[in-house]
């Protein structure tokens, strides 16, 4: 009864209903990185009722995180982000399971972190880790929702392995990164929300995932531009798995 009351406003959505809510409850999502993007995405996934959320981040909260990382408070400075985020998410929704893992994602632990999850949400802040996650998700057939931000801009692209272009089709190798990336607070909020929305759509099989294109959000003009992306014939990752699929 309590869950029917909690999710009442979304259960009322035509085509979602109790069946859709149960799909959310049965789903398992990995949010990799709980900063500006992942923190917001995790909050909405928890509020929406995703039954199991694994959050992975090795970072400790700093004052300069608080312009955009809204799950946290000043009292959390100095704490592990996953520990503070798990508390916040559990206080938002105690009917779901949060699994905090205070690790940086690497080629050594990625198999364990991706174990038994239905999809992965990108809350990372560098392309080395993003491409590692992309490659493994394509290999294992796990949908990956990519998001990124810079200044007043945001990006989003959903990858369905075996069906759509992957992140490496767009970014073949990690670009040289700026040491500190400038970001205005609300922009990761916009993109993190959209990542959570994509996850909910995939889990409930509603609508159409944002694949085969990249969303470019320009906060200065408030324009959302959708740019078509094709599978790169030279992509070393998805060409390998597409070929396997054709065999």
């Amino acid at each position, binding site marked *: 009864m309590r869950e029917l009351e909690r999710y009442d406003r979304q259960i009322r959505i035509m085509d979602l209903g109790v069946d859709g809510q149960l799909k959310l409850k049965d789903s398992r999502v990995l949010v990799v*990185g709980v*900063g*500006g*993007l*992942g923190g917001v995405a995790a909050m909405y996934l928890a509020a929406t009722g995703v039954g199991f959320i694994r959050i992975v981040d090795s970072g400790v909260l700093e004052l300069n995180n608080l312009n955009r990382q809204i799950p946290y408070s000043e009292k959390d400075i100095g704490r592990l982000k996953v520990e503070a985020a798990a508390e916040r998410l559990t206080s938002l929704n105690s009917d779901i399971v949060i699994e905090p893992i205070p690790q940086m994602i690497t080629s050594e632990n990625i198999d364990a972190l991706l174990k038994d999850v239905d999809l992965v949400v*990108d*809350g*990372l*802040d*560098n*392309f080395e880790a*993003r491409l590692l996650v992309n490659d493994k998700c394509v290999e294992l057939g796990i949908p990956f929702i990519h*998001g*990124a*931000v*810079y*200044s007043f*801009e945001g*990006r989003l692209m959903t990858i369905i392995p075996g069906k759509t272009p992957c992140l490496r089709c*767009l*970014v*073949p*190798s990690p*670009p040289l*990164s*700026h040491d500190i*990336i*400038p*970001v205005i607070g609300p922009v*990761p909020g916009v993109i993190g929300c959209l990542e959570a929305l994509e996850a909910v759509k995939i889990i409930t099989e509603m609508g159409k995932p944002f694949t085969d294109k*990249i969303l*470019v959000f*320009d906060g*200065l*003009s408030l324009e959302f531009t959708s*740019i*078509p*992306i*094709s599978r*790169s014939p030279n992509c070393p990752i998805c060409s390998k798995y597409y070929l396997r699929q054709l065999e």
Partner: protein
Amino acid sequence: MKVVVKAYATIREAIDEYGRIMIELSDHATVKDLLDTLSRRFGERFNREVLETDGTLKKTVKVFVNGRDIEFINGLSTELDEGDEVVLIPPVAGG
């Protein structure tokens, strides 16, 4: 002829505050000609964001002409026409 160039993120910062400019080119100019023109006009900052040290286009920078990736047209030799919109997109990494 004139083409519109729209740039994002670090390339936008290198060319113009609003990231959208009109560039005059000779007829039958290619994407390579356009990049050369932008390089001359905006100098080192543009080059750093768009070009490798040998002057070739960075693999991580995507170029679209009227919404089509030049990789699937004719690469840097893709010819431009009056009024074409060329979009330059570098990856962004923040999170």
